[in-house]
């Protein structure tokens, strides 16, 4: 479940058409087994339903354009797109899959959540359908969609996390440079507080933004092996999980977060953590690579925050995690088990260099394809991409990694600790007891 970042030799994706012809043959064999393709009509016309989560703006436009381009290359295929609000996606997908009418192509984020859907036999194994071009371009992030050596999805973006900050506020508080260790971060928060600025905003009402602090402390405390093992066993047996909680507890004692963080949301309105950064009411926020876009929506003039900058999560001395390791998410797409074979063609198509570049521009994010990463021009994203390329490994968000059931319990336990009601042992217990409630 770890995304190994390796800089291998990547084949150019220019020979896509040839590649997709090979896929078609492979996928034919596949669909021969499943038999009941959903959209196949007699005359060779195929209709695919497609669920994604961009409801407005450039993201939605990107998908409309990409679909049009794909339909032009494949005249027998028609793709019907549905834009679904992100928070409704899981529930709708569940209902839809249970009724046996799943969308042919749907958004997925890998990890334990995808594994649950795979275990229910609802996702197509596309291992043989992926072109070599796709495989080499996505090499590093493809593993997020790998379960038992088989591939169940194609990533479109990687979203490493780190700390976004308003550099003007740092200057105002007399902070030079960015903190590289947790002690330096403590100094920064102290200086910001002295200057009357809320140091760090966190949307603990949504739980996951608070939980991301624990994830990152765990990333620093735990070795790669311990993380791998926990992903497999879905329990916190290693001592490092306790250490991570203790480190977080120590950090919380410095009271670095905004007032009333328990009722602060992550992204909704000016009072949210992103809104606090956008309006210079707080200096820092630990968030995934999507944050610049969210903050831009919440500034008074709806334009990107000019002084926004980024640094990776500080190192925590004494941990077993490799320095430079990152926590992050992957966005991608999977095929429903009974989808027509053209679904895989479409996934190969969106992994193509040009489409990945357009994706990076439209979503203001780091594309999954290493070939398309030159399209990243934004200084903040370049900074993120730089750290991402150097990272020895990248771990998927722990709640995604462990699946909904354990992830939920973990997040709630971390919020408890933020509120001063929990203990490091409480977090470990919550995870280890969650299985009983599944």
């Amino acid at each position, binding site marked *: 479940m770890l995304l190994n970042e390796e800089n291998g030799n990547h084949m150019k994706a220019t020979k896509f058409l040839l590649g997709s012809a090979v896929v078609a043959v492979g996928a034919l064999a596949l669909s021969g087994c499943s038999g009941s393709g959903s959209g196949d009509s007699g005359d060779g016309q195929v209709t695919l339903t497609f669920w994604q989560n961009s409801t407005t703006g450039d993201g939605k436009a990107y998908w409309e354009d990409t679909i049009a381009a794909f339909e032009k290359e494949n005249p027998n295929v028609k793709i019907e797109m549905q834009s679904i609000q992100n928070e409704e996606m*899981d*529930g709708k997908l*569940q209902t839809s*899959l*249970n009724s046996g009418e799943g969308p042919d192509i749907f958004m997925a984020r890998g990890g334990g*959540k995808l594994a*649950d*859907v795979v*275990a*229910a*036999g*609802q996702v197509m194994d596309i291992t043989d359908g992926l072109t070599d071009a796709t495989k080499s371009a996505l090499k590093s992030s493809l593993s997020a969609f790998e379960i038992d050596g088989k591939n169940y999805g194609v990533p479109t973006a990687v979203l490493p996390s780190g700390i976004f900050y308003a550099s003007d506020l740092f200057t105002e508080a007399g902070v030079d440079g960015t903190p590289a260790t947790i002690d330096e971060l403590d100094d920064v928060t102290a200086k910001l507080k002295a200057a009357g600025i809320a140091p760090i905003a966190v949307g*603990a*009402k*949504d*739980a996951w933004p608070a939980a991301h602090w624990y994830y990152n402390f765990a990333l620093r405390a735990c070795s790669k092996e311990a993380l791998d093992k926990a992903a497999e066993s879905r329990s916190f047996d290693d001592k490092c999980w306790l250490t991570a909680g203790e480190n977080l507890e120590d950090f919380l004692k410095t009271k670095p977060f905004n*007032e*009333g*963080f*328990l*009722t602060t949301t992550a992204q909704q309105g000016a*009072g949210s953590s992103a809104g606090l950064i956008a309006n210079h009411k707080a200096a820092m926020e630990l968030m995934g690579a999507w944050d610049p876009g969210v903050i831009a929506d919440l500034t008074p003039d709806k334009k990107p925050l000019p002084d926004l900058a980024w640094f990776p999560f500080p190192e925590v001395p004494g941990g077993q995690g490799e320095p430079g390791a990152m926590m992050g998410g992957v966005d991608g797409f999977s095929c429903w088990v009974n989808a027509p074979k053209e679904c895989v063609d479409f996934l190969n198509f969106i992994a193509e260099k040009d489409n990945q570049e357009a994706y990076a521009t439209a979503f203001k994010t780091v594309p999954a394809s290493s070939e398309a990463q030159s399209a990243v021009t934004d200084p903040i994203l370049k900074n993120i991409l730089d750290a991402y390329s150097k990272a020895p490994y990248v771990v998927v968000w722990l709640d995604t990694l462990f*699946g*909904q*059931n354990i992830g*939920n*319990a973990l*997040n*709630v336990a971390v*919020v*408890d600790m*933020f*509120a001063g*009601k929990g203990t490091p042992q409480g977090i470990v217990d919550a995870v280890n007891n*969650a299985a*009983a*409630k*599944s």
Partner: protein
Amino acid sequence: MATVREMAQSTDNAPGMPGSDGGVQTQPPSGQPPAGRSTSGRRRRRGIGWAARAELLILIGPALVVFLAFVILPVILAAYYGFFSWNGFGTPTKFVGLRNYFTILTDPAFHEAVGHNFFIVIMSLVLQGPVALVLALLLNRKMRFQSLIRVLIFVPYVISEVVVGIGWSLMLQSEGALNGLLEKLGLGALQADWLADPALAIWTLMAIITWKYVGFAIILFLAGLQGIPDELAEAAAIDGASYWQVQRYIVLPLLGPTIRIWAFLSIIGSLQLFDLVWIIWGQYVSSTAGTSTMATYMVSNGRGAGSYGYGSAVAVVLFLISLAVALVYQRFVLRRDTAGALTHRPTAEPTTDSTTDEGKS
């Protein structure tokens, strides 16, 4: 409001159990010979032809189908799913017996949620009852702007829970309007983290609930007061009773049935409280802030955690707790209001009478 609907059902259902052939057992008004009622009943039975059957089918059929499909079937399914470990994909296959129930009953988070529920039940009665009673007595007198005041008091009840929740949560945030107002008034010392402070949050919730639902109690009480004849108060006044004596010894006892029914609605509503908590605190923070309820526990550990089997088991437990409370209340508090109409009277005529009647005629 959902509560009212559910209440109505349970009033119909629960007593239906002891005497499903209730019609026969209803005590006739004294003086009227039981035989007459019995004959008419028999005539009806005998005379039921296809037309009447079709009529019944058309009138009852659709409602019955909807009720069975959307109320009874989900209840049965929830009971079934509660025995499985099921993440919601495909059909449940992993049978776990009573494990879910053991987990629920031993989970401290659930104990807390139940505790919060019962706190809300009691505090709702304690806070809303007296306030509503006083305001209802006040509004029952002739005064200027009477209807305007009535409308204003009822407004919070009419506003959607979602609007109320979002509105209050914005005003009560640490940087929100209330703290701002306190500061401007020079009462900065009273500022607090109304929502996030675990010591305060449940009281904040009680304040919002009282504000929201007291109007409902007042309207009920006003309706009850309308039914009390003025002559009684006049007669008492002529006998020298003071205003307060009239209220205490005449109005209050006669308002009894209304108060008891309101309390019942309030109890059931408090046990099932969900929306306000969910909107103001959300699924993650409600347990931390100490405002979680059984219903929020059910949704966050069921749907939120993708554990649909566990969530269904919680639903069953919630149902049983509400049912138990409702039955106990009906048995001990509502008994005299519903006596005869819904339950056996201790002195109910023996059912053998009607059977004998049947036999004779």
